[in-house]
C-alpha cells in the first residue's frame, strides 16, 4: 500500500514541476551552451566581427555537415559500446565511386538522373562496407576495434586502387548542386519558422497538460527555439538552407526519432548498458548490431558523396582522420564510450563545438598546426568537465 502512495506522489511531483531528478542535466547543458556562446562571441570580436555574420555561419554549416552525418551514425555505434574506425575510409571509397561514375562512366551527362544514380551508388558502397563490418562483429564476434581497423585500411587501399591514386574531377553540375545549391530563403523561412512554432507549441501544450516533464519541455523547446532562431538569422540572411545541411539535419532528426520511438533504439541502449542482460531479456543483439554498422556504413556513404560534391571531385586521401572528428563530436556530446548512455542532440552540440572551433580559429588566423593542438586539448578538457559534472 505504501508503494502505491509513493508512486502517486512521484507522478504528482512531475506534474507540479517539482521533480528534482533532471534539473541537474538541464543546468549542465545550459552551462555548456553558454560556454559555446561566449567562445563564439570571442571569435566574433577577435575576427573583426566576421565570425557571427550570416555568410560565415552559413559556410560553417556546410563545413560541419559531413561530420554531422558521420557523428549521427557514430552515436548509434558508440551507444552499443562499439566503435567504427573505418568511416573515414568508407567515406573516401564511396565518394570516389560516385566521382568515378560521374567521370569515367560519364553519368555526369545524364543530368539529374545521373546524379541520383551516383548518389545511390555511394550509399550502396557504404552500405556494403557497413554490412560486412556488421557481419564480422555481430556474427563472427570479432571486436569492433579490430574489424573496423581492418576495414579502414582495406577501404583506403580500395580507394587508391580504383582511382589509380589520382584525383577524379569534375563532377556533373547536378551532383555538384548537392553542395552548391540552396533552398530558397523564402522556403527556408517557412520551414524554420514552422519547426519553431510546432515544437514550442507541442512542448507548451505538453507542459500545461502535464504529459511532459517540465525540465524536458524547457530543455527541448529551448534547444529547438535557439537552433531554428539561429537558422533563420543565418540561412535567410544568406541564400537559404544549403541542401547538404538539410540532408544532414534530416539524418540527425531521424536518428533522434529512432532512438526515442523505436524498438531498435531501445535495443541500442540495452546492448550498451548490459549486453549479457540484453541477451537474456530477449533482445536480438546480433541483429541490432548488424543493423547499426550497416546504417553507419550508409551514413558514411552519404557523407562520402557530400564530401565529393563539396570539393566537386574526389581525392584518394578524402576523409582522413574524419572518424576521429566524428568520435570526438560524439564524446563531447556526452555519449559514454562504455555504451548505453548518450543522445543525438548531444552529438549535434558536439559537432557544432568542433565546427565553431575549426572555423573560428581559421578566421582569426591561427595556423592549422596550432589548431590541431588546441582541438586536441579541447576534446580532452570537454570530456573531463562532463565527467566531473556527472559525478557531482
Amino acid at each position: 500500500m505504501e508503494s502505491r502512495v509513493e508512486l502517486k506522489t512521484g507522478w504528482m511531483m512531475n506534474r507540479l514541476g517539482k521533480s528534482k531528478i533532471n534539473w541537474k542535466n538541464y543546468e549542465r547543458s545550459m552551462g555548456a551552451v553558454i560556454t559555446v556562446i561566449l567562445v563564439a562571441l570571442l571569435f566574433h570580436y577577435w575576427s573583426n566581427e566576421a565570425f557571427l555574420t550570416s555568410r560565415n555561419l552559413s559556410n560553417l554549416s556546410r563545413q560541419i555537415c559531413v561530420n554531422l552525418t558521420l557523428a549521427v551514425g557514430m552515436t548509434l555505434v558508440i551507444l552499443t559500446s562499439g566503435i567504427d574506425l573505418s568511416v573515414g575510409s568508407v567515406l573516401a571509397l564511396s565518394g570516389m565511386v560516385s566521382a568515378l561514375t560521374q567521370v569515367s562512366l560519364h553519368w555526369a551527362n545524364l543530368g539529374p538522373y545521373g546524379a541520383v544514380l551516383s548518389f545511390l551508388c555511394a550509399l550502396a558502397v557504404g552500405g556494403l562496407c557497413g554490412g560486412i563490418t556488421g557481419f564480422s562483429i555481430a556474427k563472427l564476434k570479432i571486436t569492433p576495434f579490430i574489424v573496423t581497423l581492418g576495414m579502414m585500411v582495406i577501404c583506403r587501399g580500395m580507394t587508391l586502387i580504383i582511382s589509380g591514386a589520382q584525383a577524379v574531377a569534375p563532377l556533373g553540375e547536378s551532383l555538384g548542386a548537392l553542395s552548391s545549391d540552396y533552398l530558397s530563403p523564402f522556403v527556408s523561412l517557412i520551414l524554420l519558422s514552422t519547426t519553431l512554432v510546432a515544437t514550442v507549441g507541442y512542448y507548451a501544450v505538453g507542459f500545461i497538460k502535464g504529459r511532459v516533464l517540465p525540465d524536458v519541455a524547457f530543455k527541448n523547446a529551448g534547444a529547438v527555439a535557439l537552433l531554428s532562431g539561429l537558422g533563420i538569422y543565418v540561412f535567410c540572411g544568406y541564400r537559404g538552407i544549403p541542401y547538404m545541411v538539410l540532408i544532414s539535419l534530416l539524418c540527425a532528426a531521424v536518428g533522434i526519432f529512432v532512438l526515442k520511438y523505436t524498438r531498435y533504439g531501445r535495443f541500442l541502449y540495452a546492448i550498451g548498458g548490459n549486453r549479457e542482460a540484453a541477451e537474456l531479456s530477449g533482445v536480438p543483439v546480433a541483429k541490432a548490431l548488424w543493423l547499426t554498422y550497416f546504417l553507419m556504413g550508409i551514413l558514411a556513404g552519404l557523407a562520402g558523396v557530400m564530401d565529393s560534391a563539396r570539393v566537386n571531385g574526389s581525392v584518394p586521401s578524402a576523409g582522413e582522420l574524419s572518424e576521429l572528428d566524428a568520435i570526438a563530436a560524439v564524446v563531447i556530446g556526452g555519449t559514454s564510450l562504455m555504451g548505453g548512455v548518450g543522445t543525438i542532440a548531444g552529438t549535434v552540440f558536439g559537432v557544432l563545438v568542433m565546427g565553431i572551433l575549426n572555423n573560428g580559429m581559421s578566421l582569426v588566423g591561427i595556423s592549422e598546426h596550432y589548431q590541431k593542438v588546441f582541438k586536441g586539448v579541447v576534446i580532452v578538457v570537454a570530456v573531463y568537465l562532463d565527467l566531473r559534472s556527472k559525478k557531482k
Partner: protein
Amino acid sequence: MPSSLLSISHVKKSFDGIFALRDVNFEIQKGECVALVGENGAGKSTLMKILSGVWPHGTYEGEVVFEGKTIRHTDTLKARKSGISIIHQELCLFPKLTVAENLFLTEAFPYNGEPSQKLAETVRWETLFERADALFKDLGFEVDSRVLVEDLSVAKRQLVEIAKAFHHQAKLLILDEPTSALSHAEVRHLFNVIQRMRDRMTFIYISHKLDEVFELADRIIVLRDGQSVAELKKSETNPQEIIRYMVGRPLQVAERVQKDFSGSPIFQVDDLKHFDEQGKQILDGVNLQIRKGEVLGIAGLMGSGRSELLRSMLGILPGKRTGKVILEGEEVYWQGVKESMNSGVAFVPEDRKKDGLFLNHAIDFNLTITLLKDLLGKIWTLDLDSEKKKVTSLIRSMRVKCGSPLQSVKSLSGGNQQKILLAKMVARSPKVLLLDEPTRGVDIGAKEEIYDIIRKLAASGMSVILVSSELPEILLLSDRVLVLREGRPVGELENISLTQEKVMSFAAGEYHGV
C-alpha cells in the same frame, strides 16, 4: 584457553541491515583438522572472508583471536602474513606463469630470499626453480616447478596452493570445497597430503560432502543462518545428526494447498545431457515434466548443475547438448532467450546485476525492454503513453517501492531490484517461467512478497521451474522437487510431508553412497 590457535567469539556481520553472521563462536586447537559445514547462505564464506582479511577489522562485530592476539587485518596481505591462508574453490594462480613463479612472485625477494631493490633485475630462473624443487621435496609433493600452471590438473594446482601457503608460513590453512573438481583418486591423494601435513599446520575444511567430512575431520562445526549451532566430535555424532543441525531452522508454516495435476505435461525434458567446451559432462540424463500451474523445485548442492540445467534448456550454456526439450508436445531448439520467450518460456537469471538488469537505466526502461513488441503503435513506433501505463501497472502489481519510474534501478534496494527483474520477465505472461535463485540477497520482507507473487503466478496457470539453494524456499513453493547431484537426477519427490533432511540426504549423496 591459552592453547587454542584460533578463537572466534560473538562475530556478527551484516550487509545493508541483513545479517550474514549473527553470532559465531568456536575455538580451534593447534594441529586440529576441523570441518565447517552448513547450507548455502549459512555464512561460511562470510566467515572465511573475515579470517582472510577481505572484510577488514572494524567492518564486523565481535572478536577473532589468533595465537593469543586479536587480529586486526586491514587487508588480505596482512592476514596471510599473520599465518592464515585460504585456498578458494576457484584457485588464485596465474595460469600463464610457471609453478615456480607462482610460488615466489608475489613475495618481495623472489631470488634466494635476498633483498634486491632493483626493479629491473633479470629473472634468475635456475635459483627460482631450485627453490621451488626444494620446497616440493620438503613437502613430498610431486610437482614439476617448470611447467605452466595452466597445464597442471586441478589437483596439482591445489598442491601448488598448499605449498605456497606453507612457504608463507601459514599456521592455519582453510580449504574451501577443495574436492568439488577432483576425481576419486585425486581426493584420496589430497587427503593423504592433509593427513601428513597435520603436524605442521592446522586445517579448516569446508565441504558439503559429509562422507569426506567424516573421514577427514576431528571435529565438525555446523553453521546455520549465520550462527554456530553445533560443535561435535566426529566420534560422537553421525551424518543424520549433522544434517539435522544444518537444516534445523523451524519451517515456515506451509500453507501449500495440495493440488491435483492431471493432463499431459506442458513442458518436458527428455534425457538431457550436456558437455562443456572441454568435453566434460555437466549434466547427465535429466528428465523432467511439468504441468499447467505446477511448481517444480530443483534442489541440489553447489555445483550440482541446477542453474546449468536451466541454461542448457534455453540453449545459452556453452558446449554441446543432447536430448529433447519439448514444449506443448513439440520439440523446441532454442538458441537463446529471445526464441524461448517467443514460444512462451521466460527465464529469470540468478545474478540480477550481471545478467538481469540495466542498472544505470531507469525503471521504466528495464521493465519494458522485454515487451516492446506489444507497445508498438502506428507505423512501427513505440507508443510511449501506453508504455507509461504498462509501467505503472507493473510497478503496482509487483509492489515495487520507488519514487518515480524514471529513477535508476541502481538506486533501488535488492528486493525491489529483484521485483523489477521478475516483473519484466513475466510481463508478457509466459506459459512457463524458469526462476534461478529468485530471492538471492533479498531481505525477509521482500522474500515473502516474492513468494506471494510466485504463488499467484502459479495459481493463474503459469508453470514454474524454481531453482534455489535454499531448501525452505523449495519446500514452501514447490509441488514436486527434483534433486540433482553432480549433474544427475538422484530423486524426484512429491512435496507431501517432505522434509529438508530428506532432500538434503539425496543431495549430499547419503542415499546413493559414494
